[in-house]
């Protein structure tokens, strides 16, 4: 899957469009730049990591690589998903390490024109303001662009 994802932006680069993998966290539509995405996973069995910050849902095995999973609901200070709800993961790479972002649903890959981009409204409260790189106006909804680097900059012992 990562193959097809990384193929697209190359063709669209000229047309000043950006490609995002869209996902939902507690009904909010969000997007992660497709270039950063390495994999999309369904429900996975996670190994909990004791003493870890509460945002860390655990570790999972992705084809022999150990991937640390971060629960986006917790990272964004949202209520936990009801127990038993299947979750999906978006695997992103940062600094040579793989991280899985646990989300409610991964929907599609879309290409968005730069003209539809807006900066964060100044009234957006944290933590959203902190982890949002900006907003895209879609036809009938808004898409929050997630700043994965900031999301994964988990201060130790926080």
């Amino acid at each position, binding site marked *: 899957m990562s193959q097809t994802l990384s193929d697209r932006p190359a063709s669209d680069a000229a047309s000043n469009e950006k490609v995002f993998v869209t996902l939902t966290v507690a009904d909010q539509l969000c997007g992660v730049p497709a270039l950063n995405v390495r994999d999309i996973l369904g429900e996975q*069995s996670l*190994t*909990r*990591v*004791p003493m870890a910050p509460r945002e860390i849902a655990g570790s999972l*095995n992705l084809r022999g690589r150990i991937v640390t999973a971060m629960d986006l609901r917790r990272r964004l200070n949202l209520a936990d998903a009801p127990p038993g709800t299947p979750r999906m993961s978006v695997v992103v790479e940062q600094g040579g390490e793989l*991280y899985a972002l646990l989300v409610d649903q991964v929907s599609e890959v879309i290409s968005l024109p730069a003209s539809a981009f807006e900066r964060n409204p100044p009234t957006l409260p944290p933590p959203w303001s902190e982890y949002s790189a900006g907003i895209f106006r879609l036809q009938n909804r808004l898409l929050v662009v997630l700043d994965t680097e900031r999301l994964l900059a*988990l201060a*130790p012992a926080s």
Partner: protein
Amino acid sequence: MDDLLVDFLTETNEGLAELDVALVKLERNPADEATLSLIFRLVHTIKGTCGFLGLGRLEKVAHAAEDVLGKLRDKQLPLTGDVITNVLFAIDQIKEIVNALTATGAEPAGEDSKLIASLNAISHGEAAPVAQSPPAPLPSKIIAAVAPSPQPVLAMIPVEAPAEDPPSPEISSDAQSSATGNAPANAQTIRVGVDVLEDLMTLVSELVLTRNQLLQLTRTGDDKDGELGRFTVPLQRLSHITSDLQEGVMKTRMQPIGNAWNKLPRLVRDLARELNKKIELVMVGADTELDRQVLELIKDPLTHMVRNSADHGLETPQARRAAGKPETGQISLNAYHEGGHILIEIADDGAGLAVGRIKAKALANGLATDAELAAMTEAQIQRFIMRAGFSTAAAVTSVSGRGVGMDVVKTNIEQIGGTIDLKSTEGRGTVFTIKIPLTLAIVSALIVEAGGERFAIPQISVVELVRARVGGTVGGEGDNAAPVVEQINATPVLRLREQLLPLVSLTNLLRLPETAATPEAVYIVVTQIGGTTLGIIVDRVFDTEEIVVKPVSPILRHITMFSGNTILGDGSVIMILDPNGIARASGVGALDGRSADRRGTVAKARVASDGKMAMLLFRAGGPEPKAVPLGLIARLEDIDRDKVEYTAGQPVTQYRGRLMPLVPMNGVLDPDRARYSVLVFCDDETGGRAASRTGIGDGGRCMGLVVDQIVDVVEERLQVELAGGRPGLLGSAVIAGQATDVIDISYYLTQAYADWFSHPEQHAGRKSDAGPPRILVVEDSEFFRNLLVPTLASAGFEVVAVSSTAQAFRLHDAGDEFDAILSDIEMPDMNGIAFVRALRAKGRWAELPVIALTGHVAPEQIELGREAGFTDYVAKGERQALLRSLQQCLAQPVTQHSITLAA
């Protein structure tokens, strides 16, 4: 950087390493022409190549050195130590320049004319200028920097034969026999970048895991239509090939430990000169192979230890002669494989560790108290040298003795999952033994479960596994019952072969959810970390598995409990525990400086315990807990059923050389129990101990109260609800969240000895002509009054207790006479300080000894109390201290008190 330059640097670095060894070899055996030719050729190659590359500075130095070597080879110059020293300086300078080249890609600016001049002087037959200051100090790398050296990342891969000559003649015959003769063995080797090897290793690790998963699938898979059967054979083949491949790739990473040793002959030679000692270096097992990553990490600690042995271990030739040893001291290195690990011994035949000096130093640095030292074995004392800031060298030399050293060595070795131990005999020498894993990539680990999660514990730190019961009394049912986890103030411990093993629950430590049902039995993984053992309580133990260690994700790296993580055969991720981190987190690993820490907390606990009291909780005749102040209890004992005898229908036991009556709390001794838990009460401080030691001193009477089970010791602020009427019960209190009966111990004491409180003997040390000493107790808390009265009465005092200072003054005015007064400090109407001031001011009691009872025993408080007029200060609940204090006060003539107080 230019490819040509990279090649040159790699080649030159190898040549330089060879040169060091060869030069020292030459010095010992000047007639060895083959070695001389080798040296000449190596220097010549360096010179030639740098001329080609336009490295002018390097070329000049090499050229001057080559001139000298050429004359030596042609026998135009005699070979002396000074000549060699100068050549070595030249080599050092070449190294410096090469290092700078490696770092920057260009020759550093600098001036070598002095060195070149002295080399030229030698080659022209002039007297060799005696060892001028070395061009650069020896790169004495501090061991803390164990990061791989900045040399080009290339490894030699022996394809058929070891590529290098045996490093030095000192290497034992077995090492030499492995080399292919003396000819420069141009064995078939190729250079491969280390990163290529690392990638290969990672791929193989993953292949191994995938193979394990496939095997698991076929084993457990649902084989309805025999589909899986078809995979069995190819899968087996895949499995074999994978294993072989893994082994092969591991081999490419293996290097002989001699590679870490080849700098040592030179180092020892220089040290010997600097320290004016004669040192012989013996190296055995240089061809023992280990993973290059481990090799890199072990290099610096090894160098440091050899340095240490030369400096501290070996004596001067004079001292050795005086001790009747050969003048030349020996440092020997010995490496060998043992059970999947490499053992390296660094031995010297020097003075050994001076236990006396280590003790003195440990005391001076506050690492241990006199009493702790007295209880330690020699080996334990010797291990102090591995603590931070500990150096026994009297003087700080340029070589070692800087107070950092062995502790850093220890830390570095532990970091790679190794252990270090030492044995030393004073006057005979010291042997350090380092045990390190062959490789860091794959380790054998024990898989355990706690709180519903699985964890891996590296096998190297596991000593044994113990299954222990939770709850119940020690040895409760049957003699071969499993050991029991006991509690001291809710801290679990285990009696293991007559030793108390500290335990830590993995579930609690990692803050995992408790499993719903408390298990009846647990497993204890006994781990050895340095000199300490620690038991880790786990719920289940599975199996040992070879695991591929992978580093923890950066965002989890701050959790010190884990040294890595891995994927098991079933595909699940599992965290690898770091026993060192666990020990540190549980306060054990702080064993360096542990006693100091512990003293700190004890002092704190005392201060904080104002109004709190240590109570022993036990059960007897029912499930509800009972409590008795810990201060009243002399000892806790387990007594075998067959040790119980009967005299006149009363159970007794022989205890420390005399008979001790046993009083069963619930009336009768349960005949079904093999052992009884007994609380021993004694009516004097030394109890039965003094009696058994001296055979005299029948002041000590003891009574054993038999209970069902000792539960815990808790420290709590007591709010005792008094319950009159029931014999043997002072009242009840909420202790540890549970309603608890507080026992009136005086009731049981009189059951054992009806005359306990009218003891004819006077322990108080007062002449018996005037009858027992009378003590006035001023204490507002009824509970403490009830506690003190029996305590004092049992020691032979006549006691009057009042609840306020007002009542005390009424007794004074009524003409009552006492020999001493005990007073609480914190009291509602008038506090103890004001009370004693008032007493001292006037009246008949002005010169009586007055002892303060308090929860605070802070020095300032004591000072304040003494100024106000208290004779002594005693912590509440400390029965023995109180009795001792009373005896002292009463033994002294009272007038003396007023003198000391006035002073």
